[in-house]
């Protein structure tokens, strides 16, 4: 055990105190109690967790600190929280609760928040989400506000901007593949992870551990995130929390590839 383990991160969607799962950022399905889900992931020795309130920004709500406190007291692993974050003060409060990192989406486009937050808390606590949708002509564009507003910016250019501003990590998600369980957008993950120095977390499309293995061994992504795969089971999408055992995770990375970059 001398090199870093592959990072495999369940990404939980929440809204109004409910655990949800969308497909292509639409059609949320109710799955249960998010606190209970966090508790189960903790018992499964999950290495890292991302929780995103998928409606906070759309509904103009500030982060639900009471809920975040409940997450923090059940999750003894690095926890990243996102949804509705648009100020340094909110980030201060969330990190103070014991959350490891925040993920900022829409508010990152103001050009100031990421720089200010990275300066105050260090880049390592600031993750920027990069939600990508393809046009019918195959051009990639970054969308914000839970996939409802197009910035028109190409994702590699956007990723570079965010790196410049001080983001410590990027959460890159393919909207088109989200919930589809047919594998990651390897070309997108490859392009973005090569464009920047900071770690990229790839998300969107994972259906099996083989999808994760392909992502980790075919691109420079530092981590693989997935939602559906860890919270649903079977073709009818029955709610079921799962997380692979440590030995399975360790085997995800091709030893010839060496350290994840």
């Amino acid at each position: 055990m001398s090199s870093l383990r592959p990072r495999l991160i369940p990404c939980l969607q929440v809204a109004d105190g409910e655990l949800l799962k969308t497909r292509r950022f639409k059609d949320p399905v109710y799955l249960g109690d998010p606190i209970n889900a966090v508790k189960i992931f903790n018992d499964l020795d999950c290495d890292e967790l991302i929780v995103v309130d998928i409606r906070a920004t759309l509904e103009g709500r500030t982060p639900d600190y009471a809920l975040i406190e409940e997450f923090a007291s059940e999750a003894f692993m690095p926890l990243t929280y996102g949804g509705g974050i648009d100020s340094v003060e909110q980030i201060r409060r969330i990190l103070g609760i014991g959350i490891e990192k925040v993920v900022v989406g829409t508010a990152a486009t103001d050009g100031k928040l990421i720089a200010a937050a990275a300066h105050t808390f260090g880049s390592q606590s600031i993750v920027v989400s990069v939600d990508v949708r393809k046009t019918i002509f195959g051009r990639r564009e970054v969308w914000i506000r839970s996939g409802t507003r197009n910035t028109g910016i190409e994702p590699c250019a956007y990723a570079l901007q965010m790196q410049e501003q001080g983001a410590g990590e990027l959460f890159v998600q393919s909207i088109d593949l989200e919930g589809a369980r047919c594998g990651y957008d390897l070309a997108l993950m490859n392009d973005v992870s090569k464009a920047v120095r900071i770690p990229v977390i790839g998300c969107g499309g994972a259906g099996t551990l083989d999808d994760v293995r392909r992502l980790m061994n075919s691109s420079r992504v530092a981590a693989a995130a997935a939602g559906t795969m860890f919270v649903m089971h079977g073709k009818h999408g029955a709610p079921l929390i799962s997380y692979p055992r440590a030995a399975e995770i360790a085997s995800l990375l091709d030893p010839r590839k060496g350290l994840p970059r």
Partner: protein
Amino acid sequence: MAEVSIVNYNIGNAGSICNMFRKLQVTTELASTPASVLGAKRLILPGIGAFDACVKALSDSGLRGSVLEFAASKRPILGICVGMQMLTFGSEEGDLPGLGLIRAHTRRFPDDGELRIPHMGWNGVRWQIPEHALAAGLTTDDSRFYFVHSFRVVCESPSNSLAACTYGGEFSAGIVSANVAGVQFHPEKSHRFGLKLLGNFATS
């Protein structure tokens, strides 16, 4: 009286440390005054962010002297992350002196242009003093810890290195000198392994 006191100098992740002790059913309190630091049974010195910012905050809080005095009292003290780095003589990240409680220095990672900094993620450690109370039950192959740091500690003497970790070369993931110890990783974020380590500390 609380089993474990956490130095409260407006820096660090006292919240998640307290959460984990709560899970262990170990009582904690935040030590915000010299008297509460000096009266502690066991002390944790947390720290995140820049080295100088932490050192300065500790001085500004008026608790630096009492932390040193506590360490001299032979009761257990554990530094976590930058809290561990503060136990050393100083850091290449900053200009301010550390507490100098352990003969070690905080250095840059070797920059070969390829190594990603910070060292962030789960990594295994090799316990160099496996019989130490903090290592109890943790010397198994599967034990691992969560790291986030951009500078690394190097001991003057190997006898002070409690645990080694490899990332761009070997560094000390744990250091110790009598009652003073530090860990570079975050036990409070290292689920059952961190829980075990903090449990070991609370009974040391």
